[in-house]
């Protein structure tokens, strides 16, 4: 085997004191995060001590959900990017593609995930979900039905849910943006 090794002259300096290398998943995430193009309506809440878990805050500027402030918990596994990041909505919101427990139905987070996608793609997907909720593949059937049958009523219900009202048997979280951190 010495001959196999010697076939390719690789300079290996003694670096035995080095800590083992970071996981490929973490290197990829470092690249993803440090090159994110974030628009003003989004914010990443992260800690330099553990970048594998972070939050996304999204304040849509237009559409049904404008003036809202939506929070998502993102958790990246050591099998990233073979596996997609796990994204969860931490508030109870009224949305055709997000259930009241925070599960999100977004194709790229499950069956359409590809290792070439990155955190930027996930942020883009979340934005799409709020700019154009998709009632064809619903997770909250009640919300989807309302959007199809009576769009003005859907818009009113969304804004009432965002004020923290009760709709049916569900108490929604107040998610209106507070002016102190609105920019």
């Amino acid at each position, binding site marked *: 085997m*010495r001959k196999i090794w010697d076939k390719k002259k690789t300079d290996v300096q003694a670096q035995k004191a080095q800590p083992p290398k970071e996981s490929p998943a973490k290197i990829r995430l*470092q690249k993803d995060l440090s090159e994110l193009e974030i628009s003003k309506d989004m914010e990443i809440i992260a800690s330099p001590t553990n970048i594998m878990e972070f939050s996304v805050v999204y304040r849509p500027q237009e559409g049904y959900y404008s003036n809202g402030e939506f929070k998502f918990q993102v958790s990246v596994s050591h099998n990233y990017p073979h596996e997609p990041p796990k994204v969860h909505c931490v508030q109870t919101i009224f949305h055709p593609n997000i259930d009241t427990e925070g599960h999100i139905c977004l194709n790229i987070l499950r069956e359409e995930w590809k290792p070439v996608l990155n955190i930027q793609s996930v942020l883009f997907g979340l934005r799409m979900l709020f700019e154009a909720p998709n009632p064809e593949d619903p997770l909250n059937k009640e919300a989807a039905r309302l959007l199809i049958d009576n769009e003005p009523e859907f818009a009113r219900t969304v804004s009432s849910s965002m004020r923290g009202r009760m709709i049916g048997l569900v108490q929604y979280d107040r998610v209106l943006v507070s002016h102190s951190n609105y920019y």
Partner: protein
Amino acid sequence: MAPVASCTTGIERFLTLKAPHVEDFELVTEEGETPQQMLDKANVLVIGAGGLGCEILKDLVMSGFKNIHVIDMDTIDVSNLNRQFLFRKKDVGKPKAEVAAEFIRQRSPDVNITAHYKRIQDMPEEFYLSLSLIVCGLDSIEARRWINAFIYNLAERHGYEGFKPIIDGGTEGLRGNMRVILPKHNACFDCGLDMYPPKTTYPICTIANTPRLPEHCIEWASVLEWPRIFPDKKLDGDDVDHINWVVEQASQRAASFNISGITFSLAQGVVKNIIPAIASTNAIIAAACVNEAVKLITSCNKYLDNSMLYTGDAGVYFFAYPLFQSETCLVCGQKEGSMDALSTSTLEDLITALKEHSVFQLKAPSLTYGETSLYFQKPKMLEEQTRPNLSKSLNDLFDSGSTLTVTDPTLPTSLRVTVNFSDKAS
């Protein structure tokens, strides 16, 4: 007297004959070693003692390997017995590695085999350094990625002493593959990661609202209902009570959607992402892996360059091809470099130097050292929290000779740069 394997007679004779056109093969090396002696002292690690692992272990012993380690974190399940032939009914519930090792000890007392009922991550670096090569019979991409990155790093830091070829086998029904990974010499496991299909998943809205298959109902019970009912308990695919609960919930749901076919084994299959295993496919791939091991150790014939596919489901077709190193590989696509800097210069000075460096020419580097994030260009919050490091002097952040992981928009993956303090001997 216990029976002693005589199956190795063939390989012993084979190793005393010089084959034509094999330049690297010598009947006695410069160091005075015969191929048989190389085989005798080779120290091989088998990762996984399952369907492939049992075959690999048997083939290694029958090929004359004398020093074997086997590691597996699993215990024996009754469903393993049809193909994992080193196990018997009385062994159900016992650690696979230990039972497999004991079987081999009984069958071939001249083989020195050690069992490790552990995770590969729990073995110390010295253990890996003591090996000659590694044969993997794994069913998980994650474990393969871990061992690949770890062994690559070993070669990088220790040179030849840390050079541990990995022979990786994998099977899925009637299909199988094999890779010969020579760290720092050819494509590593991560280079070919895109070729592995991700785990089968179903759209969450289908699971939640419009199930059509029994699998949809099982995913509903395991992905949506389980965390809702038991928020603090992780679903364990090997726990009979857990799977029974899933079966019960999924069956009720299936009934209300007129779906049939929920069984215990299907539920466990979906939860654990089990792919049907065929014993003969395991035998083919394991045998091919062990022949590569013999060739790598003794140089008796040309070894595989570097990937092989067996597609038994398409009318039996074998294909061998060299997989190239990927420029964007997160393990071996990393660039390497070193820089000299004054220990008293600041992190900001280092970043400027990285940008002005004639070879690197970076635009907006972000730097980490081990678990410490030194500086992130983005996002805003990470930038703000790491900004105070910019004015710190380098010797307050790391020692001379430390290797930093640098990412930059101009790099396909990352740069590992070793910083030496020019005002101090490292």
